[in-house]
């Protein structure tokens, strides 16, 4: 029999649900945010449902931080799993007020480790408490659903595309709340999504899925620059890195951030030293030079070593670069033309200079970067219009439109 490892989320499900074959195995730390990413219909939701115990695949293993929820001999029913589950449609109970929805899963003896007032403040629910779910917007409903899940005092929060049914404005409103959760609560989180732009903002680990199978799992930035995976060769290739604030240049309004192998200067409002800041460095914002540029406007120029060269169509190449002399620092990517690659005589293992034209600070105040979607291009507008339509129709329409697909 398989034993569970403390400190890890261990998942293995194989079998088929409604004739959809699922063969999923991964293990991620029971800390921070693990994102499951894949195109719609790849079985992400099925995995979430298996973790929650809503689907029962006999050949399954599920252990959270040493606590076995399912193995060959045990299958804990959903109500005995300390899980917080937020689905695409908020599924608020229409017969209960927001306050009673929030308290539905809360254990009766107080006080709770995740306190009511704390959740209300974190998700800004105070103005909604006495309202009925039918009088909430889509984003508000999702916030209530998150609060309700948190107040059930879970040991694992599973969010199954909580933003997928929202139109882009509601998404922007709610993203800051989603980002705040892992930061404010010491609660492992599994976030399921098909939009890399969301995942890049707060995920620590990434599990890639395709056609019911896990194709890769590991730290987000490692998978983003893995030459064997499609993320690095996509046109929107980017790296998410966590830097530490080390100072602020008040004269020029430049934030000083420390990263392994680099000291970055980014125009931004001041932040307290020591604060962790998520950065996004897109491959198209990085260029390379054979020699250190003497006079240029680009602030962030660092020695780096080429780790991999990946063809991107016929005209372009994505380089994986390790920052620092000798390439001992963090990895980023650069997208250059094949013409420059050849004319500079670049090759694998070569020492170059990386020039970072633009670095995005991913924070609540900034709208999410351009969407990278794993879906087919037509899927997005469809969802957006369905969500907009639901706003008009109210609850009755929502129920009908937002019924999530089983898989």
């Amino acid at each position: 029999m398989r034993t569970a490892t403390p400190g890890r989320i261990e998942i293995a499900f194989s079998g088929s649900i409604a004739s959809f074959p699922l063969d999923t195995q991964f293990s991620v730390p029971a800390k921070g945010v693990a994102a499951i990413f894949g195109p719609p219909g790849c079985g992400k939701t099925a995995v979430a449902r298996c973790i929650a115990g809503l689907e029962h695949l006999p050949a399954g293993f599920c252990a959270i931080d040493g606590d076995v929820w399912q193995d060959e001999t045990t299958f804990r029913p959903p109500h005995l799993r300390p899980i917080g589950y937020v689905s695409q449609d908020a599924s608020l109970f229409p017969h209960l007020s927001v306050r009673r929805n929030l308290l539905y899963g809360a254990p009766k003896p107080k006080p709770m480790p995740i306190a009511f007032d704390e959740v209300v403040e974190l998700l800004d629910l105070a103005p909604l408490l006495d309202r009925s779910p039918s009088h909430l917007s889509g984003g508000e409903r999702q916030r209530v659903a998150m609060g309700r899940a948190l107040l059930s005092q879970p040991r694992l929060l599973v969010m199954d595309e909580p933003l997928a049914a929202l139109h882009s404005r509601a998404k922007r409103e709610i993203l800051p709340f989603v980002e705040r959760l892992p930061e404010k609560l010491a609660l492992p989180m599994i976030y399921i999504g098909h939009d890399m732009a969301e995942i890049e903002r707060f995920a620590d680990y990434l599990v890639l899925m395709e056609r019911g199978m896990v194709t890769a799992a590991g730290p987000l930035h490692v998978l983003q620059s893995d030459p064997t995976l499609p993320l690095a060769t996509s046109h929107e290739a980017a790296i998410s890195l966590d830097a530490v604030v080390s100072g602020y240049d008040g004269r020029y309004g430049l934030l000083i951030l420390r990263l392994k192998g680099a000291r970055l200067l980014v125009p931004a409002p001041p932040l307290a030293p020591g604060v962790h800041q998520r950065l996004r460095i897109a491959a198209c914002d990085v260029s390379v030079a054979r020699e250190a540029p003497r006079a240029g406007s680009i602030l962030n120029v660092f020695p780096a070593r080429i780790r991999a060269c990946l063809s991107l169509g016929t005209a372009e190449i994505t380089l994986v670069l390790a920052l620092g002399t000798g390439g001992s620092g963090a990895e980023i990517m650069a997208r250059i033309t094949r013409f420059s690659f050849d004319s500079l005589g670049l090759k694998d293992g070569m020492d170059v200079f990386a020039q970072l034209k633009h670095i995005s600070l991913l924070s609540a105040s900034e709208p999410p970067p351009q969407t990278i979607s794993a879906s087919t291009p037509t899927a997005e507008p469809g969802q957006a219009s369905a969500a907009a339509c639901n706003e008009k129709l109210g609850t009755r329409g929502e129920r009908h439109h937002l019924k999530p697909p089983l898989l």
Partner: protein
Amino acid sequence: MLEYLNLTRMDGFSPEVWQSLGLTIELASVTTVILLIIGTPLAWWLARSKSLWTEAVATIIALPLVLPPTVLGFYLLALLGPNGPVGLLAALWGGRTLAFTFAGLVVGSALSALPLVVQPIRNAFATIGDRPLEIAATLRASPLYAFFTVALPLARPGLLTAAVLGFAHTIGTFGVVLMIGGNIPGRTKVLSAFLFDFVQQSRWREASWLAGAMVMFAVAVVLTLTLIDKYSRRRST
């Protein structure tokens, strides 16, 4: 004819009619309560189970809708009477037959109204779908707790419809009651049977009073429940 419809005086009503009225309301109330208690879990099972038996059971429950009430009454008489299986079983511990008793009436009217009660509740449960119950389960609600806190409140319109239909149907029940009740004044003689007797005896004035009163009563019951539902629904949204 007009003289029979002279509805200005109520002098024709004997105490037996009032007694019968009380009996009818008692029968309808007891039957409705019993039907809700039995019908709700049955409807839940029919709506949620994936068993192949559900359709077979649903068919049997629906039979009283298509059978003449006298057929149902005949079988009940055979079953519950002194020589029927239930009658013999009851005799083992000194029980009496259920035929020609109030309890027999309850059994008869409950069986004939069962499809009318089960169907709306079943539909209501089916409309709720799996989702709210799954969500309740992920919020630590045991299946029983989820049933009482989520399924029942969400199925309230269906339950109300079922109660109205069950009550009204029992008030108007005639064939089954006549077969199994035996039309004993004060014990099993309900209003519809009284009306039949009045007509038989050509007591048209009493008959029209009774019929009119039953119409008014039916209107009042249905209207009251509809208003209650409307009010409570408005308050909850």
